[in-house]
C-alpha cells in the first residue's frame, strides 16, 4: 500500500478482495467525496442529470457523476464555469465529479474531426470555424471545470479498427499523456487518469499498459472498448488489462453500464463505470429491473397497477404504478424524471449489492443468483460463462440459488 502524501488528490484503499475472482471493494477518496467502489457514475453531460435535483441524486446515493468536457467547454464555456468557482459550485453538486477529455465526443459527434500529432482538429458546429483541441487545451478546460478526476486526451480509433492505425493511436496516447501531465495546473485537487488503448490486440494493450504505468498517475482508464466489438473480444481485453494494471490503483472502464456487463467486469477487477444508458433509456419509457427491462410504452402495462419493481425502494416505486407511467412516458417530462430516478436507483443498488457481497465474501454466489434472475431459462450467453469461468466463477445451469 502506498503511503498517502498530503499532495495526492486521490487515495485508493482496497477494503476487501473476493477470494475467488478479481473483484475488489475499495474506498477512493477524492477532494469532494469518499467514493465506495465498484461504482457506477451516471452521466450528467451538461452539468445536470436528466432533470434531477442534486438533492435527489444525493438521496439516491449517487457518489460521483460524470460531465462531458466537450459540451461544458462549449456551453456555458470554461470562463463562466471558472467564474462560478468550478462545476461543483455552478451546478451545486457537492460530491465527486469526473470529466472526460472531450476527444471521444469530437470524434464520435463531429464528422469533420481530423487527428494530427498536435491534437484533434474539428469544425465548430456553432460557427463553422476550425478549432483544435490539443492535450494542453483539454486539460486547461478540465482545470477550469474542476472535476475531482479528469481524463487525458487520447487518440480515439474505432474499436473495430485494425492495422497500423491502432498502434499509432496507442503510442500517440502515451505521448499525449505526457503533454497532459505537463499542462496540468491543479495536481493538488484534480487527478489525471491515463487511458489504456491498443484496440483488440493483446500485444498493443500490453505495450500500452507498460508505458502508462511508468508515469506517476493515481488511476487508469480502460478505453477503446464497448464500441461495437464482439463480447468475446470485449471481456478478454478487460481481463488482460486488469491483469496488467497495478492492483493498488483504481481502474475505470469507460462507457460500460449494462447491468450484466457491470457484474462481469467487477468480477474481472474493474472499479469504476459510466454509461448514459440508464438515463437515456428512461426518456424512452424504459425501466430497469432485476429481471430485465420493461418498456412502459407497451399496451400490456395500461392496466398494470403494480409499481415498476416491488423490491425497489425508490421514490417512484413507492408511489407510481406502471399503468399511470404508461399514460405519461415519452409525453410528460415528469415521466422521464420518474424513470430516471428509478433507473439510477437500480444501478446504484446493484453496485451496492456488489460491494456488500465482495465484503462479505459471497460475491460468486451473488453473481450466480444475479445471472439466474436475468436469464430465467438459464441459457447464459457463452461470453458470460467464459468471462466468469476465467475468474473461477462457474455458472451452473442447474444452480439451486436461482429460485427467484
Amino acid at each position, binding site marked *: 500500500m502506498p503511503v498517502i502524501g498530503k499532495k495526492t488528490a486521490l487515495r485508493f484503499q482496497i477494503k476487501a478482495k473476493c477470494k475467488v475472482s478479481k473483484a475488489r471493494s475499495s474506498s477512493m477518496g477524492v477532494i469532494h467525496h469518499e467514493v465506495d467502489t465498484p461504482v457506477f457514475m451516471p452521466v450528467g453531460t451538461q452539468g445536470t442529470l436528466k*432533470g434531477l*435535483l442534486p438533492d435527489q441524486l444525493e438521496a439516491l446515493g449517487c457518489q460521483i457523476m460524470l460531465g462531458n468536457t466537450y459540451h461544458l467547454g462549449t456551453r456555458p464555456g470554461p470562463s463562466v464555469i471558472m467564474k462560478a468557482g468550478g462545476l461543483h459550485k455552478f451546478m451545486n453538486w457537492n460530491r465527486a465529479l469526473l470529466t472526460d477529455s472531450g476527444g471521444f465526443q469530437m470524434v464520435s459527434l463531429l464528422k469533420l474531426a481530423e487527428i494530427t500529432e498536435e491534437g484533434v482538429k474539428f469544425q465548430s458546429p456553432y460557427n463553422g470555424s476550425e478549432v483544435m483541441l490539443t492535450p494542453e487545451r483539454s486539460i486547461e478546460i478540465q482545470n477550469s471545470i474542476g472535476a475531482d478526476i479528469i481524463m487525458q486526451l487520447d487518440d480515439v480509433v474505432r474499436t473495430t479498427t485494425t492495422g497500423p492505425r491502432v498502434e499509432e493511436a496507442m503510442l500517440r496516447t502515451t505521448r499525449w499523456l505526457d503533454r497532459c501531465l505537463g499542462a496540468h495546473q491543479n495536481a493538488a485537487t484534480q487527478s489525471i487518469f491515463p487511458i489504456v488503448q491498443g484496440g483488440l490486440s493483446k500485444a498493443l494493450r500490453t505495450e500500452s499498459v507498460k508505458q502508462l504505468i511508468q508515469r506517476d498517475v493515481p488511476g487508469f482508464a480502460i478505453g477503446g472498448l464497448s464500441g461495437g466489438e464482439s463480447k468475446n473480444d470485449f471481456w478478454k481485453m478487460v481481463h488482460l488489462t486488469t491483469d496488467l494494471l497495478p492492483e493498488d490503483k483504481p481502474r475505470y472502464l469507460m462507457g460500460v453500464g449494462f447491468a450484466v456487463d457491470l457484474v462481469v467486469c467487477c468480477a474481472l477487477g474493474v472499479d469504476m463505470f459510466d454509461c448514459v444508458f440508464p438515463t437515456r433509456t428512461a426518456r424512452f419509457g424504459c425501466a430497469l429491473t432485476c429481471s430485465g427491462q420493461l418498456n412502459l410504452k407497451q399496451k400490456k402495462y395500461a*392496466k398494470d397497477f403494480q409499481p415498476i419493481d416491488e423490491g425497489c425502494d425508490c421514490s417512484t416505486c413507492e408511489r407510481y404504478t406502471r399503468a399511470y407511467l404508461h399514460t405519461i412516458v415519452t*409525453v410528460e417530462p415528469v415521466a422521464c424524471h420518474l424513470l430516471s430516478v428509478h433507473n439510477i436507483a437500480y444501478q446504484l443498488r446493484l453496485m451496492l449489492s456488489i460491494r456488500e457481497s465482495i465484503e462479505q465474501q459471497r460475491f460468486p454466489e451473488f453473481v450466480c443468483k444475479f445471472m439466474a434472475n436475468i436469464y430465467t431459462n438459464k441459457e447464459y450467453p457463452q461470453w458470460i460463462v467464459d468471462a466468469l469461468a476465467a475468474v473461477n466463477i462457474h455458472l451452473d445451469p442447474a444452480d439451486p440459488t436461482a429460485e427467484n
Partner: protein
Amino acid sequence: MKFILSSVASCSNRIGYIKDIERLPGLMLETPMLLLYAKGGSIPHLTYEVLQMVTKDKQPLHIPISTVAHCHEAVTAFRKGIADFTGLKEYFTFCSIHDPAVATPYGFNDKNTISIWPRNGRKQLDPDKYMDMIEAFQPDMYQALCDGDTDLKSSKKRIHKSIDKSLMFFEKCLERHEKSEVLKKSAILGVVEGGYSIEGREKSAKYLADFPVFGYVIDGLHKNGPDVENLTFEDVREILEESLKHLPNEKFRILHGCWNPGTVLSMVELGIDAFDSSYPYTVTERGGALIFQNCINNLNIPSSATDALNAAEPVTDIELKPETSISAQSSSEPPEKKKISTQEASHAEEDKYVVSKTQGHTTESQSSRLNKIYELSLLDEKYAEDFTPLSRSCSCLTCQKHTRAYIHHLLQTHELLGPVLLTIHNLHHYMEFFKSIREAIKSNSLESLKRCVNERNDVS
C-alpha cells in the same frame, strides 16, 4: 363538504374555507385559493418527491379532463379515482373540462356535444360520456359539462347558443350526479356562461342560482391559453359583476385562466374564490421567473425586481449600459460597507431609480410590457454570468441553491432541470402571493397589496 365564508356581501372580497371533504376528512382549504394546475395528472415538471420540496401543504389540484381523457379506461379498471391513479391520493382534486394553459380550438362544438382536445386527437363529449368519465375519475369537485366557446368577439347568436346548450348540459349532469353512488362524495359546480353579454350573464346566472350546487365556474370569458394574461380587468369587470350578482353569495366561485397577478387581485376583490396555476406554468414555459412583489411591506424588495425593469427598457438602452444589473452592483459590494438600517432604504431607492428611468418608454406592446414587469426572462444572455439567485428574498429551493447563470445555462441547453427549477420558484412565488392575498383580506389591507403588486404596472 362545506364552504364557510367570513362575509357574504355582494361583489366584495371574502375569506373562506372548504372543510369536511368526505375523502380527505382532515383537510381544510382556505380561499381565495390557488388550484395547482396538473397536466396528464401531474404538476408539470414536478414529481411527487419534488413537489414535497416546494410545499408539504396539500394544495388542491386542478385536473383538466382534456389532459387525462386518455386515462379513462385505465382509471375505470383501477376503480379508485384519478387522484390515486396519478399517485396524488392525499390531494384534493377538481376537474375542469379544458386545459387553461392551451388555447382551445374553437368552432368544433355541435348541437349535442362539445369537443375536447386530448393528446390523441379531438374527442366529442355529450353529458353522458362526460359523466361516465367523471364517475371513473371521482374528483372531489368538478364542473358540469358546458359550452364556453365564447370570447370578446362572439356574436349574440353564438352567446345564446352557448347559454342554452350549457344549461341543458347542466341539467343532465346534475341528474346523473344526484343518481350516482360513486359521486356521493363529490361536489358539482354549475357553469355560468353568457360571453360578454350583460343579458346573457343575467340569464345564465339567474337560472343556475336555484339549483343545489356547491358553487360555480364563471366561464365563457376567453378560450384559454397564454393570451388570457393580456385581458385586463376592465375588459371583464362588468360581465363578472353581472355574473356574480345573481348568484347566491355564500357559494364557491372559480374563474379559470392564466390571468396576470394584477387582474387576479381585482377579481378577488369582486369575490372570486379560486384560480388555477396556469399563469406560473405559462411563465415557466417561456423561460420566465416571477419577480413581482408578492406581499405587503416587503421592504426587502427582491433584487430581481430591478432587473425586470431593466428588461422592460428598450434594447438600445441596455446596450448603452455595461452590465447594467443593479443587483450585481449591490451584491458585489462588501457587506460591511452597508449599514444595516440603510439596506431596506437602498432597496427602495433602487426601485424608485429604476421606475423613474423607465418612464416614458411606451414603444412596447401591452403584453410584452406586462410580462417583463411581473417576470424576468432567464433566456436573456445577460444572466449568463449572473451568480445571484432568481430572487434574493425568496426562500424556495431554487433560490436557496441555484443561480440565474445556472438556470440560463440549463435553458440554453434545453435541459429538463431548467423548467424544474423555474417551476419550483414560480409555484412557490405564486403560492406565497395567494397567502398574501388571504392575509391582506383578513387584515383589511387588500388595497396595499394591490399597490405593491401593481406598482410596476404604472411603468409606461
